[in-house]
């Protein structure tokens, strides 16, 4: 049910004075599209609408909106493509959503310094295409990259399959430009690869989920595009053995650029969906990719084949060409729709552990699923310890949702117990706000609150995210 809009008198007139009025929206028909993000629980059905949506085209407009909001104590919710899975872009009542997708210029690709400068609204895939055309490489590859924005990726420290070799967005940010809530502009870092000067504000803003400032400009470092790429599919009769195999591949330094695990539940989901001939009785499937210099790739493929066999892989396919590799990746890419067609609501968890603990975590997830009588498909970027247990749920079934919530909490606790973290690449948002103290303790979270206070004394920046407001 669509909720009412919190009416703020003079809001539309005030905002329209700051930018072209055609880019200020206060009608419910338009606000409805900004009620949530891709998190299954967040803002569904438009029960909470923002008071307004503004679509600025430059930093000056963003600064003006910040100043206005700070003066009027109106919450601001910066928004990229709304593809987040943690509720980070969900507006509270009376808030103003700042849609940043029109800030979409690639300012510069610098071949001699291996850097790119972009505005926050540049679509990740567009940056990748532009740098690859120049023989360069921007590795972070969240699965929403066809639509997600660089600003959103930075704000959530987005990752992706390539994280196992190349790290995540946080490892590529060299510098940021941002607007503080009082409308002042700050910049930190730039094209220098080394920097040992002052607090690293770029790192601090990276992953801040819109709670400190509006990130407007980003300088990222680039790599040379790897010339060769090979894909391997391995089928295992035991999930444990596959998880052990993952740990061995990583420990032996085969250096894959992707190492994806799917368990039997998910293999069957995908096979139901695609009918591509995956073995339904396989307990686990590993999709492994290596890239780099051809000779290195050849050696890594050999090593990975040997290790998979040693850990009991019953079949191994090495793609002969790009087309065959693509067809192997089809299975992994179909995961999201395949699982979605199995249950009305699917929660994709993001618990992450040190990679050596992947087998323990997989076992724990299975146990937690059994204890709470919920169905969980285990998959994830197993090579970097970032698992995505897919919990099959139904928002319309409150009893089931209670068990699902318990399951989410238990998985989070288990990841922390194994020395891991609440989130590998999705962020905390509203979804895990109540768990943050489990990871950092009351003092750790208190310090984070004080840092926020220094940036945002009036508390207007994306309130309700990261931790529960007191």
């Amino acid at each position, binding site marked *: *049910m*669509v909720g009412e809009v919190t009416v703020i008198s003079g809001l539309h007139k005030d905002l329209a004075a700051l930018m072209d009025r055609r*880019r200020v*929206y206060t*009608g*419910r*028909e*338009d606000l*409805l*599209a*900004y*009620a*949530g*993000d*891709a998190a*299954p629980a967040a803002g*569904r*059905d*438009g029960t909470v609408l923002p008071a307004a*949506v503004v*679509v600025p085209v430059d930093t000056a407009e963003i600064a003006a909106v910040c100043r206005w909001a700070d003066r009027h104590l109106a919450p601001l919710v910066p928004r990229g*493509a*709304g*593809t987040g899975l943690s509720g980070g872009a969900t507006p509270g009542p009376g808030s103003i959503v700042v*849609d940043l*997708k*029109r800030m979409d210029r690639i300012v510069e690709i610098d071949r001699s310094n291996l850097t790119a400068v972009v505005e926050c609204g540049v*679509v990740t*895939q567009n940056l990748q295409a532009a740098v690859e055309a120049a023989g360069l490489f921007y590795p972070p590859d969240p699965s*929403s990259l*066809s*639509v997600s924005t660089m600003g959103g990726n930075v704000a959530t420290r987005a990752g992706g399959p390539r994280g196992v070799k190349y790290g995540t967005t946080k490892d590529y940010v060299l510098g940021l430009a941002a607007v503080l809530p009082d409308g002042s502009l700050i910049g930190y870092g730039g094209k220098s690869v080394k920097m040992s000067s002052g607090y690293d504000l770029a790192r601090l803003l990276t992953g801040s989920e819109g709670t400190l400032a509006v990130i407007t400009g980003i300088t990222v470092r680039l790599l040379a595009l790897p010339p060769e790429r090979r894909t391997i599919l391995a089928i295992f009769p035991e999930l444990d053995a596959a998880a052990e195999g993952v740990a061995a591949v990583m420990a032996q330094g085969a250096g894959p650029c992707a190492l994806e695990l799917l368990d039997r539940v998910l293999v069957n989901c995908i096979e139901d969906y695609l009918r591509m001939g995956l073995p339904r009785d396989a307990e686990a499937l590993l999709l492994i990719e290596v890239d780099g210099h051809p000779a290195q790739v050849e050696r890594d493929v050999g090593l990975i084949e040997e290790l998979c066999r040693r850990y009991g892989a019953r079949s191994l396919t090495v793609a002969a060409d790009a087309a065959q590799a693509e067809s192997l990746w089809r299975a992994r890419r*179909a995961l*999201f*729709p395949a699982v*979605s*067609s199995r249950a*009305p609501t*699917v929660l994709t968890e993001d618990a992450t552990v040190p990679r050596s603990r992947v087998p323990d975590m997989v076992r724990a997830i299975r146990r937690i699923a059994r204890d709470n009588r919920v169905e969980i498909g285990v998959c994830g970027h197993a090579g970097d310890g970032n698992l995505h247990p897919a919990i099959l749920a139904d928002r319309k079934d409150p009893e089931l949702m209670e068990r699902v919530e318990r399951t989410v909490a238990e998985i989070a606790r288990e990841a922390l117990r194994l020395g891991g973290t609440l989130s590998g690449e999705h962020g905390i948002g509203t979804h895990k706000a109540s768990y943050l103290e489990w990871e950092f303790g009351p003092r750790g979270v208190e310090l984070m609150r004080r840092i926020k206070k220094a940036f945002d004394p009036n508390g207007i920046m994306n309130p309700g995210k990261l931790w529960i407001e007191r």
Partner: protein
Amino acid sequence: MIKGPFPEDLAAEIDRCTQCNFCLAACPVYREDRVESAGARGRIDLVKAALVEGSLPVSARVKELVDRCLSCTNCTQVCPGSLRVDEIVAAARSVLHDTYRFALAERAFLRRLFKQRAQGGGSKTAASLLRGLNLFGGRWPSLANPPFQQRVTPVIRPDGPVRARVAYFVGCGVNYLYPDTGEALVQVLAANGVEVVIPPGLHCCGLPALALGDHAAAAEAVRANAALLSVPDVDAVVTDCTSCGYMLKVKAPALLAMDDPDLPRAAAVSGRIVEATEFLAGLGLAREPRRRNVRVAYHAPCHRHWCDDLVGATVRLLSAVPGTGFVPLREPYRCCGAGGAFFLTHRELSESIRRPRIEDILAAGAEVVVTQCPACRWFLGQGLAGQSGVRVMHPLALLAGSH
């Protein structure tokens, strides 16, 4: 608050949406309007609130947003769940028509045009209908007189041995607007040993009615065409129009109820539908075409997803013409903004969607643009007129020049 009778199955289809927003980047209207309410996800969320739940009043803005959709299906093509957004939008329009008596004039016009065509009506009546209703304003092409179907014999046999036999579904685009495409199709297929059967009295495929939410008229067209296209002993039913093909292959059987006596026939026809370029590419040319030195750009119509590999087939077939070279477009799959008849009612929006497409074509240095969609052809042709000598035609028409 009025609750429209929104179809349950499509309400459930909306509920399948995971809000992933992948459709945003693919939606040509979002790319212009740059507000998420104008994208596919925003649109179906709005339909749910206004027409399924009734929790949002049906306002002028609701109508505007529901109407502001090209039915191009680019959203469906990138949707992880392949949600049938165009059907949700069509159903929403249908509810808006029935409940709010909205767009009744367009509907009435379409129904009359349908009847005209089936009764072998001429272009003059069609044209006067159009002008008389004065619905669309703007430039309107001169219509083919007589229409294509009245110019051809029902069976065209090749001179040499028969390699294949097909039934040809003549769409309204060819019948009234571009008979040259139909003539090229018949000529090229006959020259390559294909016997062509054109059943007399074909109806419009029904897609325009569906887009306006007139399910009854669309289903009527499906039944009539299913009967006419059930030609025995044909290898395929070909169409040269990707939108007619989309209707006949995907939409037609889905429009009829499970117990509809015409369903088996419609399903059998659907199973045989192949786009003509793709059919010929699959069959292979019987002889090498004559040299033709020309730089060609391919504008792939949005409604291509029901084909196996329309882009590959088109490139393969025309590459067989010595001297013909493809110039790559910067964005090969970008929509031209025509959206069937959408451009007639949303001229400004359509023209701004078209602008970068025209620039892309001119920058590529193309002399000819080939495309399978008559609406794309007309709309791109208008955009290219005056500022260049670039011609737009069906791929088979280019091939016909080399036979």
